[in-house]
């Protein structure tokens, strides 16, 4: 539809939407793995922002940053899953409402 051409705003709104959805997902879900997945969603939303703006300002620096974010996300996912494994070994559950040792 050339009536409503896709502008930078479309991409930015999309990424904002994805970010908020990911955040809400973290708050709502109790399963630790789902929480981690929502975290990945948030990071991807940020990636989308960077790439869109790189396209808008015609600078590949946005791509570089996206590259770095991906690398960090990978490391973080690895470590996070390692922690989930250790937690599962000790507590026999991945539900966050079992981990209330910090209560009070």
């Amino acid at each position, binding site marked *: 539809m050339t009536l409503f051409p896709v502008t930078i705003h479309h991409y930015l709104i999309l990424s904002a939407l994805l970010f908020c959805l990911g*955040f809400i997902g*973290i*708050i*709502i*879900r*109790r399963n630790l793995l789902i*929480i981690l997945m929502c975290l990945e969603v948030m990071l991807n939303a940020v990636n989308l922002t960077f790439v869109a703006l790189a396209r808008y300002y015609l600078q590949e620096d946005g791509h570089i940053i996206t590259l770095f974010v991906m690398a960090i996300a990978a490391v973080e996912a690895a470590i996070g899953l390692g922690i989930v494994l250790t937690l599962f070994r000790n507590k026999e559950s991945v539900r*966050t*409402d079992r*981990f*209330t*040792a*910090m*209560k*009070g």
Partner: protein
Amino acid sequence: MQNMNFILLIPLLPLAGFCLNSIMALLQTKQKEVTSQITVSRIACGSVLFSFLLSCAAFFILFTEPHVAALQYPAFLEWMALEHFSISFGFLIDHFTCIMLLFITGVGFLIHVYSVGYMKKDPGYSRYMAFLNLFLFFMLVLVMADSLLVLFIGWEGVGLCSYLLISFWFTDSEKAKAGKKAFVVNRIGDFAFLIALFITGSCFFSLQSETPSAENIFHFSYLAKNASVLIPHITLITFCLFIGATGKSAQIPLHIWLPDAMAGPTPVSALIHAATMVTAGVYLVARLHFLFILSPFTLNIIACLGVLTAFFAALIACTQYDIKKILAYSTISQLGLMFLALGVGAFSTAIFHMFTHAFFKAGLFLCAGSVIMALHHEQDIRHMGGLKKTMPLTTLMFLIFTLAISGIPPFSGFFSKDELLTLVHSQAQYASYYWLALFTAGLTAFYMTRLFVTVFLGQARFATTCQPQEPPSSMTIPLILLALFTLGTGFLGLPPVFGHHWLQGWLQQGSSVTAHTAGITTTQEFFLMGLSVGGSLFALSLAYVLYTKKAGLTPKFKTSAKNVYTLVFQKFKIDECYEFLFVRPIKFFSEHILNKNIDQGLIDGLFVNGMAFAARFFGRSLSFAQTGLLNNYAFYLLLGLTVVLITVVLM
């Protein structure tokens, strides 16, 4: 006015004695036998002796140089420097002060020497000597004050020392209570004194002076010059000052502390409650005679209260059995006579009577002390008697003092009391006071003779295990000296019919105190003299007869007039009235309202515990937010982020 620096030493020497002796007293509690009683005695008596010698020097200077109005050591310490006035401390010795100094330091020295013997075996000896010196320091500050404020410092100080010395044996709760009672009643008087000071100060402060000057508004000469400023409030000021004097000099209604104050050692009673502290009230009124003259209303009240006090105290003394209590009521009665003299305007007569009274009353107390010590602390006269055989010297001394207080010539008491009565009679409006005062003089002779006869004459009624002997010479020599003074000081104030009234002339020099002449004829004077002497002799012989020959009459009288007798014996139940009216409500209020409700309930409960409770409550309620759930914390993150971002945008 001449500046003399040595007069500063007169109060400072006893103060130095106090400091040294209190160090000795403190050392003594740590190690026994470190300090010797001789050192303490030497320090104490020596400092007072030197004060006495310096007072004699001051007297000599004033005596030989009539043009000198006063010796002063002015303004050696400045306390406040306000816009128009300054308040500073200084000392002043004029003719009136000089007389006071002589007998305060003189009698004080004799009593110090007596105490060396009396308190020899007491473990708190150094403390006693220290307090005695401190008392002398404050008394000297009081009489040497050049302004009302310095006088007030001395005033408070003697009250403090009186408390310290009355409750000297404070391990006995009765004695401690007596000390407390003395201090509290004194305080009531002090409160009135303070109000008088405040009113005086405010009268001067509201005066706008054109040029700022550094005048000391409480200085006596300043007050004398500017007394007209105080005229609108003069009645209130003088009345409040008189209430202060009432508290200090044990007049009705604040006389209740003096009989209880006999719980202290006998030399203390002699010094403080006979010769010096209780005369501070008389001193105050006489000093400020220029203010009191402006307020005839207050003078009326002073005369009325004085004569009533004299009468009632004499009545009570007739029925008491404790030797020291009889002497205490006798003191109250004589002070009442002094205030009567002040009230009729005869200021120099009051001073004369105060002067002679100091000697014979101190002598009476010291004799009583010798008797008490000889009979191993027996104070009830019903268990004494027949001491004439074993203690002849004390008996003679006591006889001399009794005759003096009864007003028999040629002892000093006659001259001062007679002058007092004559001057009261000469003022027509005080006629009834004269007859009452005359009757009181008769009562005085009566109960003093009763005391003498019961203690010294007749059969021995004390336990046979006591062997009363004469006290050691450290105690008898002061007695002898006091007796000599009692014989001699009367001649300082000879009435016009006999000769020159030296004291009146002396006091009028430098316009210290105004004096009165009766303005009556010689025959009238002789008539009044005969009346007073005759009355005293009659009472004396009546008492002698009643208590030696017709010993059976007094018990019959007691049973027949039982109610009246009981009332008088129980001191007209004034102590019980005060207990009911004042002490109990205050105690109840303090205990139940102030302590339980306010202190425990409000301050402890609301402020102290309430703070803790509030902290715990808020902490606990906030801890509900810490669930330990990851999701909740993530939500808080979101919330915080949103809030911060929106706030930043809105700013």
